[in-house]
């Protein structure tokens, strides 16, 4: 059951009475309550607010953070590759506190009932206004993956989210899933909706023919009279991880050299502070911060890592703070810089969880959301079945919602094996809750949803698994694409993340027999990036499968046996 507001406040207070420092709170602050959690005294003179990867979640959600987020090589045991108790210990967060619930998977069901849903644009709007009241001249940044991820965003071509971010007062954004609406739609939104309201920034997107910038690479905002550059970095591997045909004339990439030139140009144009609004993913941000000089802070997203403290990365020009602000409208980052004589002298940072029970919904935003949902409400609220257990996705390998999708795919296609993409978005459903069509859409709402059946040899299947594993576990972050391991149904396998490509995947077995490299198997899937053929969308396959059952029991997850990983704080049991 939900605890009362008063009890909630007491729990926040207990967190501090026990000598625990809450994320972002200066050590000198002694008493912590809700007011203190959200009442950040203004500091310095340049403030930036940041949220990212909300994946169009306008309503408050349950979102279980991962219990597997393995870091290898230099990434091992470092942020963001810490889960569960390892995470709490590293950041000094009290177990069973509201913060522990927001940042980790621990006791997820029980804690969800206790602390209520997190996020929601109405609650986010209230918090932003509250923080801005103490920082009248601050800038609000949106890290992208904003227009995609829900039924209503798909059905309105992203318009619901465009209007919502305008209402929030976003000053600048960058993108990734935005591009899956197609180049034409992206340009249309920028010209018709964003013009005069917010900048869409990306220094790393150029047109194929002339290699000219497609978007503004950076913008300079005067904050309390201090010129502050916001540089944009879209997801570098959009045309690889998502369909190329959506953006046929644009080339992406990390473009580190151009990043340096852009930062230098911004400094030359008078910027005293340079902030990179990034959709690189945190491991890529960390590497970039060590090599590009002149960036004061990277405010990043893509890999959905909620990290309570900035990582201070040294480079030849000084120190760059690397910040990642989580996902699904769960968090708001507040970064305050003290800038004097043209340089950043000091900073304060907080990553604030949006506890919807503690924040009154903003009236204007609530009205917008209600209007958005009204025409679709019957479809959204259709109850397909009851969840017999917690359904979630996030983690390096199959979550229970993925397993449900795989089971549905294999049944519908009469397949031996099924693949489902390792997306990091997709909300959770608590045991006993009805699974609605909206829940299914929160796992599947993409512009290329067609389910497929192909015949692939054992050799090809191994190649696919090796390829995806290398995108997740390459020791060089610049060769990673973000996302988690492809979810696999039917096929059993072992994985050693520490090995090189070609050697990670072993022990492949189907129905107790080793996979035959030369035999062809029936493989079901969805979200092909090659072309979007006509066919049944994944949400219909999944919804029908659930409708045919009263209660949905997933049972054992078909996760691989993990080898070669010992004492890794990115891996926890349940």
């Amino acid at each position: 059951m939900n605890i009362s507001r008063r009890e909630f406040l007491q729990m926040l207070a207990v967190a501090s009475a026990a000598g625990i420092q809450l994320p972002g709170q200066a050590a000198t602050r002694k008493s912590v309550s809700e007011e203190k959690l959200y009442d950040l005294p203004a500091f310095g003179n340049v403030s930036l607010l940041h949220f990212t990867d909300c994946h169009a979640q306008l309503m408050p959600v349950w979102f279980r953070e991962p219990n597997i987020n393995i870091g290898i090589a230099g990434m091992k045991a470092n942020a963001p590759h810490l889960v569960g108790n390892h995470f709490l210990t590293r950041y000094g967060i009290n177990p069973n506190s509201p913060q522990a619930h927001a940042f980790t998977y621990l006791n997820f069901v029980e804690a969800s009932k206790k602390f209520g849903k997190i996020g929601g644009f109405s609650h986010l709007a209230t918090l932003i206004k509250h923080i801005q009241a103490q920082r009248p001249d601050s800038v609000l940044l949106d890290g992208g993956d904003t227009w995609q991820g829900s039924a209503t965003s798909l059905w309105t071509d992203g318009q619901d989210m465009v209007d919502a971010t305008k209402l929030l007062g976003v000053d600048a954004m960058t993108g990734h899933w935005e591009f899956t609406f197609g180049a034409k739609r992206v340009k249309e939104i920028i010209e018709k909706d964003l013009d005069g309201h917010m900048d869409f920034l990306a220094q790393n997107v150029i047109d194929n023919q002339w290699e000219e910038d497609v978007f503004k690479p950076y913008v300079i905002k005067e904050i309390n009279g201090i010129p502050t550059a916001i540089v944009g970095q879209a997801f570098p591997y959009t045309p690889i991880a998502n369909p190329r045909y959506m953006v046929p004339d644009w080339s992406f990439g990390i473009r580190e050299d151009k990043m340096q030139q852009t930062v230098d140009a911004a400094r030359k144009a008078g910027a005293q502070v340079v902030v990179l609004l990034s959709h690189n993913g945190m491991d890529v941000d960390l590497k970039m911060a060590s090599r590009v000089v002149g960036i004061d802070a990277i405010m990043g997203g893509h890999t959905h890592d909620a990290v309570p403290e900035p990582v201070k990365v040294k480079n030849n020009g000084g120190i760059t703070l690397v910040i990642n602000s989580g996902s699904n409208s769960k968090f708001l980052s507040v970064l305050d810089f003290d800038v004097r004589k043209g340089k950043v002298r000091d900073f304060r940072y907080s990553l604030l969880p949006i506890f919807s029970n503690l924040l009154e919904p903003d009236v204007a935003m609530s009205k917008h959301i209600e209007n958005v949902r009204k025409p679709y409400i019957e479809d959204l609220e259709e109850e397909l079945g009851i969840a017999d257990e917690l359904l979630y996705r996030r983690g390096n390998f199959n979550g229970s919602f993925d397993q449900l999708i795989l089971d549905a795919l294999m049944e519908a296609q009469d397949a031996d094996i099924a693949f489902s993409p390792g997306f990091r978005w997709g909300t959770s459903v608590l045991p006993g809750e009805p699974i609605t069509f909206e829940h299914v859409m929160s796992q599947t709402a993409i512009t290329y949803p067609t389910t497929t059946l192909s015949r692939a040899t054992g050799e090809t299947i191994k190649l696919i698994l090796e390829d995806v594993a290398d995108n997740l576990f390459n020791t060089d972050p610049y060769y990673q694409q973000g996302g988690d391991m492809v979810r696999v149904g039917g096929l059993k396998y072992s994985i050693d993340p520490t090995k090189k490509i070609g050697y990670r995947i072993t022990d492949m077995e189907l129905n107790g027999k080793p996979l035959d490299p030369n035999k062809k198997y029936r493989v079901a899937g969805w979200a092909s990036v090659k072309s979007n053929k006509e066919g049944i969308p994944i949400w219909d396959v999944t919804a029908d499968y659930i409708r045919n059952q009263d209660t949905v029991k997933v049972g054992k997850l078909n996760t691989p046996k993990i080898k070669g990983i010992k004492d890794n704080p990115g891996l926890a049991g349940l």
Partner: protein
Amino acid sequence: MKRRTFLKGTVASGMLGVAASAGLLAPRMVLAAWPESAFDAKSVDGALDALLGSVNHAESNDIKIKAPDIAENGAVVPITVSTSLAAESISVLIAKNPSPLACSFALSGSTQGFVSTRVKMGKTSELIAVVKSGGKLHSAKKTVKVTIGGCGG
């Protein structure tokens, strides 16, 4: 017909910019002494030996390769090689291509060492740039990954 383009440098404002959009075309028509054996060689050493008469090359920090870390399309990978060395030639090899030598540019002494082209890559491979300067071979390399794609995000 499978051929590789080769455009011999016409110097424009001190910079030689070459873009061959069609992938792998042979320069037989352009170059009198077409080094057939070099382009047909099945190994990096074989190609270098046939083209430049030596397999020995020293890694140099004066050569820069600009290429994507992960190719958006293996069939057309945009690359740029630039060098501060006085280059007599700049050659590009894709180690894991069936025939590694992708292109070679003969430069005149007053030409800035800068070439830009597109190469075809069958799979993830090291891309090696070899610059001939002062009668010696200098090199730089970079891995370009070719991936199936999908599943990110």
